[in-house]
């Protein structure tokens, strides 16, 4: 090698290095500039104002706690007790929580020396430590109180409405009614509602104790009351999860069954007609490109909301995806096996069955099982749009913005469901085609 050659080589190497170095700086710079653009395009500075931290606090505290309402109707003087203020959580006639006492004067002990007293004639006394006794009289639609002019920030008061928030609970007073909310940790009534005879009984007592309900066996009765729990609707939730898994299963399997014969038409090896091949591929591209969202919207018009619509949306989209993957797998099969089968005098169909299918089955099964898991997630999302399964229940629970403990319950169930399907499809893959990793 001459010196000239070497210097040329060096020059080339230098240029290459320079270009690489430039690229090394340019890519992060471009990404940074893009993120800067996004910062303003997504209006991140304005997000702080739009974000509702109160919502976040409600969500965080409500998802693991519940409240019991003690409500006095100021027109009739009637006092009712209900978990979450819902009719299905109402204490049956003649019963009430044990932190409420008194007949003429109803004393509500919120704990921590916070005491609310419902006095006759719509008067209310609120006793909070380190604060003067609050007295409120409801008259018609307005309130008379002894609250001072300058109020601490945990009290809001107007002529029509007084709200008091303490760490032990919340009190709201209006002319029409007086309400006390007492907060407790945990998901109340998760097992049994208040009207069930099994409410408040321990597991041991139900399983091994004396018969609680004379008409039913303890175990069967408890199971039935839990299953038909009106507050948590375990039966509906189980159905919804079943629907979601059903959508994923039917959609994936149906797509695989449809895609397999079509994939033969799209593979160069097996489909000599160029036109047919191209047409099949365009169909695959089309159904994939339209995407599950649009299919869901279109199919919901024909079939109405429900799991079938979701199933068909998954089925149609995945037929395209499977078709593409399967036809690629078919193009990569080994010709030798087919020739071997052919040499025994096999007809075309037998050649496919014994020469081709055994080669592609592992690839196909792996893909199908992978999609089964991923479609469980898709089915949750599609269910929220088309109205079926656990996705719908979650959307409804979030949109009513009331029962965050139910939202938390659904989220936990969804995560468990997806993880179960992940594990299940991995297990099945291990059983069927041997474990790869």
């Amino acid at each position, binding site marked *: 090698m001459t010196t000239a050659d070497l210097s040329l080589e060096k020059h080339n190497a230098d240029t290459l290095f320079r270009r690489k170095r430039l690229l090394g700086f340019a890519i992060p710079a471009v*990404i940074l500039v*893009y*993120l800067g653009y*996004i910062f303003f*395009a*997504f209006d991140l500075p304005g*997000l702080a104002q*739009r*974000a*509702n*931290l109160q919502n*976040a606090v409600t*969500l965080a505290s409500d998802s693991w706690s519940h409240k019991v309402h003690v409500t006095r109707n100021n027109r009739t003087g009637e006092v009712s007790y209900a978990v979450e203020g819902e009719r299905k959580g109402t204490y049956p006639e003649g019963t009430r929580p044990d932190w409420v006492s008194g007949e003429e004067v109803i004393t509500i002990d919120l704990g921590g020396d916070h005491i609310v007293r419902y006095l006759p004639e719509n008067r209310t006394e609120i006793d909070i430590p380190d604060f003067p006794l609050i007295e409120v009289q409801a008259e018609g639609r307005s309130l008379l109180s002894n609250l001072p002019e300058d109020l601490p920030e945990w009290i809001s008061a107007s002529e029509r409405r007084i709200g008091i928030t303490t760490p032990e609970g919340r009190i709201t007073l209006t002319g029409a009614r007086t309400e006390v909310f007492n907060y407790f940790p945990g998901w109340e009534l998760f097992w049994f509602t208040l009207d069930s005879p099994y409410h408040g009984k321990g597991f041991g007592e139900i399983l091994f104790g004396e018969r609680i309900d004379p008409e039913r066996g303890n175990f069967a009765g408890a199971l039935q009351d839990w299953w038909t729990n009106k507050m948590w609707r375990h039966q509906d939730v189980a159905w919804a999860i079943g*629907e979601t898994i*059903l*959508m994923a*299963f*039917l959609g994936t*399997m*149906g797509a695989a069954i449809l895609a397999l014969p079509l994939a033969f038409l799209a593979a160069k090896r097996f489909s000599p007609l160029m036109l047919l091949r191209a047409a099949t591929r365009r169909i695959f*591209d089309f159904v*994939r*490109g*339209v*995407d*599950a*969202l*649009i299919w869901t*919207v*279109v199919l919901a*018009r*024909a*079939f*109405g909301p*429900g*799991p*079938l*619509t979701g*199933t068909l949306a998954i089925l149609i989209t995945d037929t395209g995806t499977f078709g593409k993957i399967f036809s690629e797998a078919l193009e990569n099969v080994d010709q030798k096996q087919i020739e071997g089968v052919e040499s025994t005098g096999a007809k075309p169909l037998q050649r496919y069955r014994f020469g081709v299918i055994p080669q592609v089955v592992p690839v196909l099964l792996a893909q199908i099982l992978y999609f089964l898991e991923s479609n469980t*997630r898709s089915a*949750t*999302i*599609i269910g*929220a*749009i088309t*109205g*079926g399964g656990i*996705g719908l229940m*979650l*959307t409804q629970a*979030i949109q009513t*913005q009331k029962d965050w403990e139910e*939202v938390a319950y659904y*989220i936990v169930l*969804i*995560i468990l469901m*997806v*993880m179960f399907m*992940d594990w299940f499809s991995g297990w099945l893959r291990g059983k069927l085609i041997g474990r790869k*990793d």
Partner: protein
Amino acid sequence: MADVSLGGAPQNVAGIQSSYMAQVQRRRLYGGLTLLILVVLMVSGFNVADDRNAGGFWEGLHQIGDYPADVVSEAWAKRADLPGLIAKYFPALVETINIAAVSTLIGALAGLILSLLSTRGLAKWPRLIPLFRRFSDIMRAVPEIVIALVLIFVLGGGPVPAMIAIAIHTAGALGKLFSEVAENADLKPVEGLASTGATWSQRMLLGVLPQVAPNYVSYALLRFEINIRASAILGFVGAGGLGYELRNAMAWGPGRFDEAAAIFILLFGTIVFFDQLSSHYRNRLTEGQAQ
């Protein structure tokens, strides 16, 4: 011949044949049973789904073309407006793509770190590998819609909740795929770097990343494709972008089908375009690796 040795090595041809036939029959029986179970599951599943649907399958089947036909005919009647509508919805499309792009970027970065921390031989804290694996499993298992809906409640509607939701899922999904690639990385450069006293991040950046980069980029591109679809769907539940516009256009019903048609066209075109683009680059990346 494995059959023979398995079947207790019968010596004569008839014995071999009969044991082979028995085996074949057993396999056929199992295969048939599996198929039967699958068919029963599918048929009964279909019936359940059909029962619980608002409209039945057979009644709906002939209506399947009605809605597309309505949309197409109306869009055709107003075809002069279509370019204008497409221009009108183009910003929404850009938002949808931006959501997908940013969430892929952030998710890929987080997935990269997660994968390196959860790969045997590379992890900074080998004892915490199971922890990081479970962590990415959970991130992967949470459907985007769950996080998106909760964040919409807290942060208000718009692209940010969707972005965060998709990024979390992407980080989990890519974390797993990346870690599978990283497991096959050659450890010699890492050891060489370690011998010069390089820190963990230097070893990863200079020793591992150059080896795995083509695969990582290829997976990230595939994920970008998936995320465009996800971001369109999340828009439908209120996270902004094209999906949100589609829901509004759908809610207006007949008379505004041309708007729905414009959105359909945009969405379809975008998905196909990015599919082609990403598969082109992915092919190039994986081919380059083979050489």
